[in-house]
């Protein structure tokens, strides 16, 4: 698909918007519909589109597989880490109220971090699955 000029130009226009929209869904999840899962999938879809149009080699240069795979674990660790930190600060596991001086602020911070963890894991898993499927096709 590398020679399709229209596809290349249009996806170059669209991909930044997709990524921006994903970030909006991620960090605006407190106020509107959306959250980590949806944002992660949209973010991953942006990368998948890039890989489809510009080829796997280009995708590998942008998102190195080893890095993306480590992000899978990092997202989950961030989630669980928030729980552990709230335990260290004297609350229950995943009790965000103790993360800041004001319980409501703590809840905000906790939800933000936790959703970020979910988003990172989901996006990384999506990119990794697409990559491993497509790489098998290349190996043929």
């Amino acid at each position: 698909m590398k020679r399709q000029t229209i596809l290349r130009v249009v996806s170059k226009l669209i991909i930044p918007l997709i990524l921006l929209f994903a970030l909006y869904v991620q960090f605006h999840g407190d106020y509107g519909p959306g959250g980590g899962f949806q944002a992660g999938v949209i973010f991953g879809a942006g990368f998948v589109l890039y890989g489809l149009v510009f080829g796997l080699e280009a995708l590998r240069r942008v998102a190195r597989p080893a890095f993306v795979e480590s992000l899978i674990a990092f997202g989950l660790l961030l989630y669980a880490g928030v729980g552990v930190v709230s335990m260290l600060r004297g609350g229950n596991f995943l009790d965000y109220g103790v993360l800041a001086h004001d319980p409501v602020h703590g809840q905000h911070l906790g939800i933000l971090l936790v959703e970020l963890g979910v988003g990172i894991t989901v996006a990384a898993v999506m990119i990794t699955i697409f990559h491993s499927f497509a790489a098998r096709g290349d190996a043929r």
Partner: protein
Amino acid sequence: MTLLVCTAVIVTRLRNLFATVMLTGIYSFLGAGWMLLLDAPDVAFTEASVGAGISTVLMLATLALTTHREKRSEKKQWLALLLVVLTGAALVYGTLDMPHYGDPNAPIHTHVAPRYIEESPEEVGVPNIVTAVLASYRGYDTLGETTVIFTAGIAVLLLLRRRRESRRRGAEDPR
């Protein structure tokens, strides 16, 4: 709803797998629109991006690895049809006991939901109650879900990666 049923029937009738994949994408979009009508934009979001976007791409990648045509099976699977009809009938029978859609006295609206709606603005301070429930009240569940996704990603990596490396080693291609 009618469109959903139509698409499902066409999917089962078609033999061309490429068209089937495209139709499942359309099915997901219709499902997303339906969820939006039911005032569940979060679910619609997920359905549109996962069902229509990512899984269509993954199915296409799988098709590129395998074949475009479905093998025609000669035997009619009457036992399977009977089982499916029975299960469907049992499920429909089960829904007869469920409260009507939007019934304010339904158990789901009288258990913990009022507390979430009334107190989450003070306790959590997040305008989107769905997010508050998902990330704060049900934090354990969401942690579990994230772990499921993590495990799925690792499993796909293990299955596909090992196959590729053994093939590479077999071809004696050092890299």
